[in-house]
């Protein structure tokens, strides 16, 4: 080892300094860190939407409560929560090296995602058939419909993107191009979609339930 390698400012060796500079942030791989940064940014997006919804709901005197039943939203919640478990199973099996089971659980998660999207669209169709659109609300202030379709639409967009990612990553994992880490990163995104739903349900649906 050369003298230059031994110390920098008499404190750490050059080798140690290089290791410190190249070590991943928080011991998290770059790809995973990128997903975390995306999640934090997306949290700000959804938080902005939900808080803006809160401002408007608070400032509107006659806010409508158009939801009569919780059955559909309860089933959707159950599906999304279960899909979070199935993707965890996929990651666990991938970590154990069981490629076939990991792929199967990934596809089961994708099916749950599709089911969620179908139920969501069915609910939208029901509301549209009652006259609610992005700019018109038959029950009162048009802002309700605008906010409802915007927030749930943004979430649905995330679910759709997630389903495409699940299928694409699953197929590539099956083909040997991706590994367990890639599955885990996709799982992070899917859990985030689930996490957002935990706030959308009470704020957008349950608080607007007619009694």
């Amino acid at each position: 080892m050369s003298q230059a390698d031994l110390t920098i400012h008499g404190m750490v060796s050059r080798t140690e300094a290089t290791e410190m500079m190249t070590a991943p942030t928080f011991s998290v791989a770059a790809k995973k860190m990128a997903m975390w940064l995306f999640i934090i940014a997306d949290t700000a997006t959804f938080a902005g939407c939900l808080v803006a919804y809160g401002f408007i709901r608070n400032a509107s005197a006659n806010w409508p409560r158009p939801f009569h039943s919780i059955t559909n939203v309860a089933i959707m919640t159950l599906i999304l929560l279960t899909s979070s478990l199935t993707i965890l199973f996929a990651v666990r099996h991938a970590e154990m090296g069981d490629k076939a089971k990991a792929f199967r659980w990934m596809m089961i998660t994708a099916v749950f995602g599709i089911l969620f999207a179908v139920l969501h669209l069915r609910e939208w169709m029901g509301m549209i058939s009652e006259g609610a659109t992005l700019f018109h609300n038959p029950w009162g202030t048009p802002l309700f419909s605008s906010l409802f379709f915007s927030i749930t639409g943004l979430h649905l967009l995330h679910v759709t993107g997630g389903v495409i990612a699940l299928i694409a990553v699953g197929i590539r994992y099956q083909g040997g191009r991706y590994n367990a880490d890639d599955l885990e990163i996709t799982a992070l995104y899917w859990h985030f979609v689930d996490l957002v739903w935990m706030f959308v349900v009470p704020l957008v649906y349950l608080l607007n339930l007619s009694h």
Partner: protein
Amino acid sequence: MTADTPKSSGMTKDVGVYICLLVLAGIQFVIAYQDISAKQMFERMLIVAIVEAGLALLFFMHLADNRGLRWFVIIFTVAVLFGLQYGWTDSNRLINGVPWAH
């Protein structure tokens, strides 16, 4: 078989957390049918949602295993959420009018 044991126990933990999340989601639906004011309902549901999100972050997204990343996420998220609260005064003013108008 022995090497699989930690992963299997991990799956058991995942199922446990999943059941907790289902119960919490169920509690939110029960709150929705309580005979309480919208403000109380909002507060209770928000608390349950935060607990749910915490469980998902810690155990499903494995933040419990990484202290540095956990604080990074918490500090950024809380800062953003606090930053978004600036509009409540305007929101209240729209519905109640300015205090000196009464």
